[in-house]
């Protein structure tokens, strides 16, 4: 197994506020890994910084993706390397249609003639989106927006996807649907997945391994089975 993504003593501070205080982790090719933790633990900061979406001057330590250090690169360059991000809170282009949002997902691709087929594929994967094809992004329901955000990230043919709270604000039945889709991407398309999730139960059920983050540090890590059986994790995150 080769490492797809590695963080080495990664830190991030917003001005004087230390949001992430030196974490190290490794995600291997083909894995599906989760990052859980309470509000404000620094999960989104970690995800965004990996993808080059925070101010670069706040970063310290190394972020290595496919053997290259990327902590100094801007977001669009990282996306071009096949690392896509589904941002917390969906961030759909509000005044573009569903179809245009998908096209924007393929912004960097040169093989324009395959884009149409890929859109069809996304519509097959998420039939709800097909029904709303010509609606503006802002007119979609939260669940539809989340599906669109995932589909949009897929349009770039990524090798790896980072998802920040894919279940945020979704009805339980939709959450199950979204996680089914995520697992399918991992199993069928071989995409490596790293996701943040508030719903620790579904996170530990869907992933193979997990990291637990607390106030800017990783406090526990291991296979999801071990984490689910861990006394501290059960108390703090599974509410048992």
């Amino acid at each position, binding site marked *: 197994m080769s490492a797809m993504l590695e963080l080495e003593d990664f830190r991030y501070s917003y001005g004087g506020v230390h949001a992430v205080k030196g974490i190290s982790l490794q995600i291997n090719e083909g894995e599906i890994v989760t990052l859980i933790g309470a509000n404000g633990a620094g999960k989104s900061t970690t995800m965004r910084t990996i*993808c*080059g*979406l925070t101010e670069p001057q706040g970063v310290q330590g190394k972020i290595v993706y496919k053997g290259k250090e990327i902590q100094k690169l*801007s*977001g*669009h360059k990282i*996306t*071009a390397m096949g690392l*896509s*991000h589904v*941002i917390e809170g969906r*961030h*759909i*282009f*509000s*005044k*573009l249609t569903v179809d*245009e949002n998908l*096209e*924007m*997902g393929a*912004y*960097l691709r040169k093989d324009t003639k395959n884009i149409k087929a890929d859109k069809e594929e996304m519509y097959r994967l998420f039939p709800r989106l097909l029904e709303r094809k010509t609606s503006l992004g802002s007119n979609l329901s939260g669940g539809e927006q989340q599906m669109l955000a995932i589909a*949009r*990230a897929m349009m*770039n043919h990524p090798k790896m996807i980072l998802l920040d709270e894919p279940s945020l604000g979704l009805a339980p039945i939709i959450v199950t649907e979204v996680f089914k889709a995520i697992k399918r991407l991992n199993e069928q398309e071989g995409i490596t997945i790293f996701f943040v999730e508030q719903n620790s139960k579904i996170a530990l059920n869907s992933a193979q391994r997990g990291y637990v983050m607390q106030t800017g540090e990783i406090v526990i890590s291991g296979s999801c089975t071990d984490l689910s059986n861990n006394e501290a994790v059960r108390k703090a995150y599974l509410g048992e």
Partner: protein
Amino acid sequence: MLKFVTLFISATILGCTYGLISLSYSLIYKSSGMMAFVNPDLMTWGAFLGFTFYTLMGLPYPIAVLLTCVVMFCMGFAIQKGVVRNLIKRNVTPMYITLTMFAMGYILQNLSQLIFGSVPRKFDSIIPGLKIQLAGIQVQPEAIICVGVSLLIMALLQFFMNKTKLGTAMRAASMDPMAAESVGVDVSLISGLSWGLSTTVIAAAGILCGPIYSVSMVLGANLGAKAFAGAVLGGYGNMIGAIIGGLAMGFIETFVSGYISSDYKSLIAYIVLILFLFVKPTGIMNERAIQDV
């Protein structure tokens, strides 16, 4: 009837000029949420540059227009990279950015006075000797060119922003810069391009109306306020709205001057603006100006 046609023609010229200026305000607003009050003075520069290339250097008019557009595109790009981006990086409040826009406008205005003097300059005739009759009225060929090219620019821009990949990326970057960056758009580059595009449009307005109105340091400043009103009237930030709003201001102003008195043209134009905004605060095209950013 003759008077009506004459007024109609002048209104169309003025309206198209306003339309282009309004459009350039809208483009910047759409792409970065800013009020580009520097634009009218960039228009003056466009007109002076055009005058330099065409009348002083003797280049053919189409070449002069192209050169002016290229130079002004670079200028807009440089303003974004050199000034606007630095202000944003320092996290200044929008008020400071607006103030900087005005300051840059005055600097450009004074520079143009230093370089070209304060006597209004006249373009050489573009197609000497050509006389065009329109519904019994003699029309300058410059006027036809101004209206024709303005409309062409408006149509091309509409197509570019809505139907091309780059145009869509510009709109996407203004809606959600982080999401745009995450799908692979170089947002920093795109912001520079948007400014460049906006200054190109306004410079084109300058070089198109220059041959009709003659060029002085206050050319843009005199037209800028009404064009801004036109952009608001149309729904600030909406491109089609900007064109319609600009045209409307041109028509109101010209017809009030013609049938009532030119003393009342601004008075009535602004009263119409305010009354209209009472009835429809989102402008003709329903743009939610403030919530939209």
